[in-house]
């Protein structure tokens, strides 16, 4: 007889804390994916059940929430935003008999030294973004640049990769600034950026800091005079929170609804009919992660984490990004990557893809990953 155990999803994300807004998007999209799957009769006849928990945006609470879900049988985990939580979960998956699908954390360590057979990343890694910067920078027109980045690993990596990429084009980076996370008042940085008198500014800031920076840059007349180039800057929520300050800004993007694949078209249509708006980048990535998870269940013919993990290793999967591979060496989904620009489109201001970089730009798996 066919085994039709339900698929039990442990949805852990931020309902409170600094990442509550992104958490809300992730939760909405995963629930959407689950409803959609159940409406189609489940996954190969398996009903999908979900249990939710709040990770409060911290590794400790996240780990606690995930452990509880996993031990209660909701052991296909998905949802945390910051890399710290993903890194805190990964080492425990065997102990909890769980598998984990990363949909938002970008740290290279997740597929590097902390890589685990049961942890899969379905979104872009930092390394993938950075690899793209080199290619993308070839098209930059401006002569002088500055950068402002969040003062932690990601910001430094971003800023340095950018500097390397533009210097390789024989251009100049005049100053590289790092603002502490949680900076409220960017005026000292904006003053320096204005003073530097550059043609364009690379911005690698996240969340509230990014919003504050953009708003204050506009207040001081830094934008629109000087062009901003964004690393993970032109996300939907950013555009919404900064009124029109980001209009015309170019930057990396993980997803926009314009991606031309059959599954994406179907997804966007279904989403629009339910929510009467387009999905955001965070929502689409979370949806994508859930799809990968379901695909694993389908391929394994089982909802057991160990089976799902085994089935996904090296698998080729049809996603909203087209048919892509779950790389066996580090469990990284090898995705295309995008550069977009914020434009008015069908009455709303949103990122629109300008340039697509093929999956083969993805750097080779880290040597630190030993599974």
């Amino acid at each position, binding site marked *: 007889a066919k085994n039709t155990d339900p698929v039990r999803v442990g949805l852990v994300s931020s*309902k*409170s804390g600094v990442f509550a807004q992104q958490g809300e998007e992730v939760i909405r999209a995963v629930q959407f994916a689950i409803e959609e799957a159940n409406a189609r009769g489940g996954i190969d006849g398996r009903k999908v059940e979900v249990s939710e*928990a*709040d990770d409060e945006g*911290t*590794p*400790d609470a996240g*780990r*606690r*929430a995930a*452990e*509880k879900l996993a*031990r*209660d049988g909701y052991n296909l985990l998905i949802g945390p935003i*910051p*890399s*710290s939580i993903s*890194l*805190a979960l*990964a*080492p*425990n998956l065997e*102990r909890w008999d769980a598998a984990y699908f990363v949909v938002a954390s970008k*740290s290279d*360590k997740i597929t590097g*030294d*902390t890589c685990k057979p049961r942890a899969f990343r379905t979104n872009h890694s930092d390394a993938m973004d950075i690899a793209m910067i080199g290619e993308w920078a070839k098209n930059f027109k401006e002569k002088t640049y500055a950068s402002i980045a969040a*003062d*932690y*690993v*990601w910001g*430094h990596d971003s800023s340095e990769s950018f500097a390397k990429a533009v210097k390789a084009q024989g251009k100049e980076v005049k100053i590289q600034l790092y603002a*502490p*996370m949680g900076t409220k008042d960017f005026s000292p940085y904006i003053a320096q950026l204005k003073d530097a008198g550059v043609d364009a500014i690379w911005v690698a800031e996240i969340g509230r800091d990014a919003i504050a920076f953009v708003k204050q840059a506009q207040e001081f007349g830094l934008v629109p005079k000087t062009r901003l180039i964004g690393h993970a800057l032109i996300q939907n929520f950013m555009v919404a929170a900064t009124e029109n300050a980001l209009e015309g800004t170019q930057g990396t993007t993980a997803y926009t609804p314009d991606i031309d694949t059959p599954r994406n078209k179907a997804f966007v249509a279904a989403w629009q009919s339910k929510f009467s708006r387009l999905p955001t980048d965070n929502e689409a990535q979370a949806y994508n992660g859930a799809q990968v998870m379901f695909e694993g269940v389908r391929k394994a013919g089982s909802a057991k984490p160990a089976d799902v993990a085994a089935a996904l290793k090296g698998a080729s999967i049809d996603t909203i990004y087209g048919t892509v591979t779950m790389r066996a060496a580090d469990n990284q989904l090898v995705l295309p990557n995008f550069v977009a620009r914020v434009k008015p489109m069908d009455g709303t201001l949103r990122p629109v893809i300008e340039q697509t970089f093929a999956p083969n730009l993805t750097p080779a798996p880290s040597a630190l990953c030993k599974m």
Partner: protein
Amino acid sequence: MSIQRMSLNTLAALVIGAVIALTVSSGTVLSLLTQAIIYAVFAIGVGLLLRQNGMVSFGHALYFGAAGYGIGIILQLGLMPAELAIVVTLAAIAIVGLLFGLVIVRVPGIAFGMLTLAIGQMFFLTASRARGLTGGADGMSIDWPSTLFGISQSVLLRPANLFMLCWIVLVGIILLLALLLRSRFGSITEAVRDNEERARFIGISTLLPRAAVYALSALVTGVGGVLSALNTGFISPESLHWSLSGMTLMMVVVGGYKALWGPALGAVVYFLFKDILGDYADHWMAIFGIALITVIVFSPTGIAGALQKLRFRHQATPAKAAVSSH
């Protein structure tokens, strides 16, 4: 409390732990309890400082996180075996605690709390911005060896075993502290807490006892940090953040710090309550906040205080009543 009573209580506590470990089969419950016990150790550290020095620390997460970072870094660099790493890390915490203590205990009242908060935040920010080994804001995993103190990791990490280990540590710490506070050291620190100036005038130099209590509380907190590192295998700057200290302080006050074991009780209540909330409510913050306010308003001496009052109600009228009628 007499020594006999103490050993009896200790024995009873150990038996209760064993019964829990043997009878509770749910991994969820055991791991929740383990978590609670780890924070109970942390809370006892914070409570000790409050009880014995009258000082409120908003920065003890520093020592909790430092334990994880210390061990994590040592293991990552392969400097020494894990067992030694634990000892060295704890010794370092005690020494650093003493040195910090010598400088900061002179600051009075709530300013002391803010000072500890500032020091803790400095370490938090430094850890967040670090790159390389510790992984900065992303945190680092702790590579425990496959056997620790001769026990294989998979055995050690089994929920019932880990729970029992943490329980024994907790009971051991409470016992040791109780013994220590019965000694002269206990009276001296109490005297200094009550009236520092007068203490000097009866010949007590007050700086060292205060710093010693601070160091001791840092050490106890560090032990909690080691257990946490073992349980989670991961450390990140959030473990140094003041909000963690604040949360622990909450456990201390809810549990009641006049009794040594009060903070531990507070930790357990905190985790159980939070767990229930997590299941049923999207508004856990508000519910939690209201519950916190309610407990504090209606039970000023914490749960431990309320329990003790209940017990004393049966016993004879307090000594004062008997005296004032002379």
